[in-house]
């Protein structure tokens, strides 16, 4: 297992260079002068423009820009945004916020999604099963931003239960956006678990376990559920990474100062170093969460081995 983990971590090296260079090249490909665009419809002086272009290496060809950036990264300098902020500071300030949001959503997804999936799977055809089917279908078919605005209007404005913007109210601020961010994945997770559970409950090994006279809770908990969770874990693992990215819309609607808003701003203003910094961090999170998933497989099903 140790060698496996090490090998997986080594894989991040080409992924790191590949992803950062790709992002750099894409930002580079956007036409137009970003410095001038930042100043808006009013021109800025030629000398100022030149100094700024030079400061951000915009006069260099793509490879040189990328080389300078990577060299900076290895000396601990992630570069700076066009407004003069250190990218490292931006990441340090914004990432925890998005992470908190994603984790809130993740917990909501696990608690609600798995509960709904188990209830529906165990009582196939019952009222609960139908309720889960209908409600998950509804949630999946509504776009996230619509769900966000409706949640704001109803739960925030009409009922006044939860804050609708910012993070000033502490952990409660994360509940509503967390739920909206989790909604779609929650529905998928519930349905995935339901299907998987229904299938496993019909499997031979479950019949064997039942006929051995094991209690139902043990049959379901130790045997059926354990096997049913494997595809769900795969999904959840990939989903944590997706959530970090999906936060772009949710953070915008709920005015959460996380990486979502920043990456949107940075892309539209062609700030290579900022985009690369955020994307790199996302890539690392994605790799790590998938690594955890793979390790978890081994725990859930000892037959799965990687050596």
């Amino acid at each position, binding site marked *: 297992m140790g060698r496996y983990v090490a090998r997986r971590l080594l894989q991040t090296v080409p992924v790191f260079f590949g992803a950062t260079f790709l992002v750099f090249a894409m930002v580079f490909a956007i*036409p*137009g002068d970003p410095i001038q665009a930042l100043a808006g419809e009013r021109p800025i002086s030629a000398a100022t423009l030149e100094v700024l272009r030079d400061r951000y290496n915009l006069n260099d060809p793509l490879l040189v820009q990328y080389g300078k950036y990577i060299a900076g990264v290895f000396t601990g300098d992630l570069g700076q945004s066009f407004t003069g902020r250190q990218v490292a500071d931006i990441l340090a300030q*914004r990432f925890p916020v998005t992470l908190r949001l994603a984790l809130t959503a993740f917990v909501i997804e696990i608690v609600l999604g798995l509960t709904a999936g188990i209830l529906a799977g165990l009582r196939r055809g019952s009222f609960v099963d139908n309720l889960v089917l209908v409600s998950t279908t509804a949630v999946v078919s509504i776009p996230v931003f619509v769900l966000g605005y409706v949640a704001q209007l109803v739960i925030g404005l009409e009922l006044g239960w939860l804050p609708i913007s*910012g993070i000033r109210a502490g952990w409660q601020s994360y509940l509503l956006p967390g739920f909206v961010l989790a909604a779609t994945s929650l529905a998928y997770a519930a349905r995935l678990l339901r299907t998987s559970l229904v299938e496993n409950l019909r499997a031979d090994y479950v019949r064997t376990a039942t006929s051995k006279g094991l209690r139902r809770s043990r049959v379901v908990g130790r045997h059926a559920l354990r096997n049913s969770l494997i595809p769900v874990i795969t999904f959840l693992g990939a989903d944590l990474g997706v959530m970090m990215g999906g936060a772009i819309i949710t953070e915008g609607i709920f005015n959460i100062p996380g990486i979502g808003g920043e990456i949107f701003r940075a892309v539209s203003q062609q700030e290579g170093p900022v985009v690369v910094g955020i994307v790199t961090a996302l890539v690392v999170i994605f790799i790590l969460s998938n690594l955890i998933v793979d390790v978890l497989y081994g725990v859930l099903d000892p037959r799965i081995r990687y050596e």
Partner: protein
Amino acid sequence: MRMRSYTRTFGAVAAASLLITACGGGGDDPVADPGDDGGNGDATEPAEQTAGGEFSIHNCEPQSLIPQDSTEVCGSKVLDQLFSGLYEYDPETYEPVPVMAESLESDDAQNWTVTIRDDFTFHDGTPVTAQSFVDAWNFAVDPDAANRNANFFENFVGYEEVQAGETDAMAGVEAVDDTTITIELTEPFSPLETMLGYTAFYPLPEVAYDDMDAFEEAPVGNGRYQMDGVWERDQQIAMTRYDEWPGENPGLADRIVWQIYSDINTAYLDVQQGNLDILDGIPPEREGAADADFGEDLIRTDTSSFTYMGFPMYDERFEDVDVRRAFSMAIDREAIINAIFAGARQPATALIPPVLATHREDACEACTFDPEQAQQLLDEAGGFDGELVVYFNSGAGHEEWVEAVSNQWRENLGIENIRFESLEFAQYLDLLEGGQIEGPFRLGWVLSYGSPQYALEPLYTSGGSSNYFGIESSQVDDLIGEANATPDLDEAEGVYQQAEDAILEELPNIPLWYETRTTVHTPRVSNVIMDGRTFVRVEQVSVED
């Protein structure tokens, strides 16, 4: 302390400045009518303004909080409170009102002497001197500092040399003593007084130059309000009243919190929920419902934000002024404003915006909707051949109205072959800069300071910094030069109007409309006033509880 008692009687001063009759102020008197906002031009009973309290107001994330580098409203609004310049702008008339300036004198509009007050201090207690201004201005121009407001000093003697890196200080600016600054300009410029109120001209304290990045986190200014904590990026900027501020009309509220939003829809809901007190500029799609949502707590203000369709006059198909006139007269501005902006625009009938006293409602003849004459003019000019490409920048909400304008050209001028070219802003500016536009293009202009000079010179003079039309008229250049050289401001205004007429003769662009800004607020604040720069005058806002 004398200062404190002065603050308490501010109610009367604020009301008087609004040209509304008010009874003598006194913070202890009961408030006459808490529901009344006493705001812009309403003929209702004036409410009494009281000092004290705290409120929150919407803002966007500033790009910079260094005055010499701040080019956009998000930063300037905040800096306007943290700093006091030589002049500020009257919220009603947009005229410059002296703050730190004692006097400004010149015989030829080229050599100026500014005398400043000696009783202002920065928030760290150090006095504001003539040198504080001179150093800040030289810093503004310093190429290594790369400040985006550098070119506001273009007509100062020595600007070129400093920008070229030959010297550190502009030869044309000097602090003669603690309270006297002399300014020498490269050519006469009568609107200097108005320009000196702009953000780029604020003074900086010594401490700023030690570490400009650290300074930006919590700027130490000389304004009515001082920073309370640091700039919390993307979240908020809090400020408290600076009680040592010696000027007229000190701030009313004890504390102001600028809450930073990325989506104004969320801000709108927050005002409804009561989590935000003032939203300056509601989402366009709320225009229709805002009256019902907010009733009395809503203010509409004219702004200088000007939208136009420019012509590439270097393209031969637009060479004939009658073609350009036809394009302008074929647009029913009123109909588009009602259909797309729910009425929240004011049709443009001039190039000098309605927020200025120099504005004339009937300056632009070709701005009246007259489809028949438009068609006739176009026919006589030989019609329009080929494809009409209409340019605008994408993702900024221009799609709908650009399409509506184009539809009117199709209907009223019979131009069937229309194509849209929508580009990212950076690329868009590149095309404009390079003169590679082949059809009418959308752009806007907002006044940084309230002079007709700023509405005309950068856009329409030969080689003007924002002259994307390629208009080169010696008549226009001469008239604007003449107006700039006229020391008497009233006299100069007439000449600016002549220049405006000369430009409208040429019609390098189609004036479309000026934005009307809708501001909403909670019932707990009153006296919410927005000025011509679209800044809510937060120092005059009164908190009810």
